[in-house]
């Protein structure tokens, strides 16, 4: 049952990811991307990582994708504004991506998962995660805050309009 579910989700994920690329209309692309995120969240659940799945849906499908939609609407992108790409470039890109796929599949094929399942029940629960994050991995957690700080300063700095020179 799990295996079937896995195949179904994977199929859906790959299909919608392809559709993201192939859709002419950017809004459709974003919608397909949301589907992709949902299917990946499904994978997380299969892997017993419920918290991650929920966060994934909230952050990516919820917040980020909505932002994307807004930007697309504000910039008024549509089918016509898509730039013309030469066929040679497309062809080269396909060849290139195909090669990458082949190589990756080649290196991943035939390798059994080596890492031992920890087998701990409830590994994906908030409690377990919190314990790891605030005990063993407290330091990276703090570093992440610095990362966010840097991103925030940068975003504010770049996003602000030019004229306000002397006040914040």
């Amino acid at each position: 049952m799990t295996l079937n579910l896995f195949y179904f989700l994977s199929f859906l994920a790959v299909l919608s990811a392809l559709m993201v690329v192939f859709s002419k209309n950017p809004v459709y692309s974003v919608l397909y991307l949301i589907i992709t995120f949902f299917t990946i969240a499904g994978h997380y659940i299969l892997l017993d990582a419920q918290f991650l799945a929920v966060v994934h849906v909230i952050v990516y499908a919820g917040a980020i994708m909505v932002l994307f939609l807004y930007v697309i609407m504000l910039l008024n992108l549509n089918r016509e504004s898509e730039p013309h790409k030469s066929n040679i470039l497309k062809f080269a890109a396909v060849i290139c991506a195909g090669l990458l796929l082949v190589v990756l599949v080649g290196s991943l094929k035939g390798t059994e998962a080596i890492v031992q399942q920890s087998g701990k029940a409830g590994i994906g629960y908030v409690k377990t995660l919190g314990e790891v994050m605030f005990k063993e991995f407290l330091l990276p957690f703090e570093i992440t805050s610095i990362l966010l700080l840097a991103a925030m300063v940068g975003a504010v700095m770049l996003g602000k309009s030019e004229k306000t020179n002397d006040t914040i």
Partner: protein
Amino acid sequence: MVNTEFLISLVPLFPLLGFLIVALNVRRLSHGVTAFIACGAILLSFITSVVLFTKLLSAPEAERSITVTLYQWFAAGSFSANISFLLDPLSSLFLLIITGVGFLIHVYSIGYMHDDKGFNRFFSYLNLFVFFMLLLVMGSNYLLMFVGWEGVGLCSYLLIGFWFKNQNYNDAANKAFIMNRVGDLGLLIGIVLIAWKFGSISYPDVFANALQNSEALKSHGILITWITMLLFVGAMGKSAQIPLYTWLPDAMAGPTPVSALIHAATMVTAGIYMIARNNVLYAMAPATLTVVMIVGLATAIFAATIALKQNDIKKVLAYSTVSQLGLMFLALGLGAFTAGIFHMATHAFFKALLFLGAGSVIHALGNEQDIRNMGGLKKYLPVTYMTFLIGVLAISGIPPFAGFFSKDEILANAFAQNKIVWVLAVGASLLTAFYMFRLFFLTFFGKERASHEKMHHIHESPKSILIPLIVLAILSLAGGFMGVPEVLHGSHWLSHYLAPVFASSTQFLAHHDHLSHATEYALMGGIVGATIILIIFAYSRYAKNNHVPATDETTTGLQRVLMNKYYIDELYNAIIVKPLYHISAVFEAFIERLGIDKLVNASGSFVVWGSRTARLLQNGSIGYYIFIMVIGIVLILVANNLK
């Protein structure tokens, strides 16, 4: 001996101080003060060198090698490099020449450069050059020598391009520097190989080690051959041998004193010094010695033929320098190290003299360098004429001038070893006599071909120019007597003096029988006779019959080839410079243009942020970058998976 050690470190210190004082006050000092400091520094160095020289002479033979260590420079891996100086007969001889001739040329420059705007700058460079040159010959390890080696290259770059006024001078300077660097890198690899093989880079250690393992080194000859070959590549660059010689004639763009000091007397002989210093290693590598000999011989002939048709007074001298250097390498290649050094010393005298004399002529004629526009200068420039004549006689090998003894020694060695080499070397030497006298007669004899305006202003040079000329003329006259061969009832003082340096290498060299006195007399007589016949021929052609070389357009055939220096520069351009530029252009076309330039050209003027960003994303240039990256990734993964 503490005293001696102190003196040794003083020798390079004076020029360094001179450089620092002048360079730091380059805008403040008056010309007189600068000249005083710069010349004084070299004079002090010279006096110190003389004192050291006498000390060496009075010391017993075994103690004629003194090493002074100032401090440890750095340690890399198993070996360490020190800042330390080595004084032995070989380096002391070089010290005398560098500081002595250097001093004379400094004095000469006072007169030559007196109204140049860059007077102070010029003298600071000269002092710096002397400092590096001293470092080169005094360093007691390879790396210090290399520092000096690069340093003189740098100073030569600065001095060639001293009048950075036009592009040709800049190009000449660049060419000199880059060609030298090609050689230098060979040298550097050689040094690293030595460090790797012998675990040390100081001369005494390396030579001792090499002598100890001489059997092993000789049986696996490939390594020692490589080392010596790479060192020789360095010598080729610095001493302008085939194929790295084309920079030297171009280097004549610099002021004439520079040509005399750097490109005749001192820097270009660095290669000779280096091979002589490493005589032990070279003696163990017969293959390299043969290469040195062949390259030297080829260069000697090749450059001499080019010199036949040059019409620029300095170019003739430049090619003659290249040719004479070739003769020195020939001597070294024959294993006759003393003969090579001997010729180096006499050559320093007479070639410096010739260059300075040429400078005096150029000065008198208001920067005219073409000998077709000279002629008949004998009566206007009597001192220059007389000294120049001595120089020409010396280089042509007329007894008893300096060049005769040293050249004769080389030729005798060649005769003893290989008759064909001897024939070719004699040919080069005869060519030398011919083109030098051609130059001489065209300049000082015959009709006055300079414009009236120039003849009107013509004047003998000031004292500061003439005195060095006279001193050098005396040296060119008498310099040969330090090595009068046995056959002429001399004792060959020089070979005794240098004997300790070359002692350990003699065992590896093939022994050749001494020529009988009769043969030697016959050889000397024959060559001198042939030389004199050629001189007479030159006299009748250029002085009496007023034959003036044709203008560039009317020359044909071989003459044209000679005049264009066998088109070597063009060849280099075609096979090295152009392809590199083409590769660069192709890279640029494919990588740059496709991506960035298209974008830049399209964007042109300022556009609003949004559209620019959008265009940026749509342009595909990032896609293109990612494209390249993905190809890279695929290759890496494939490579990894193949194992």
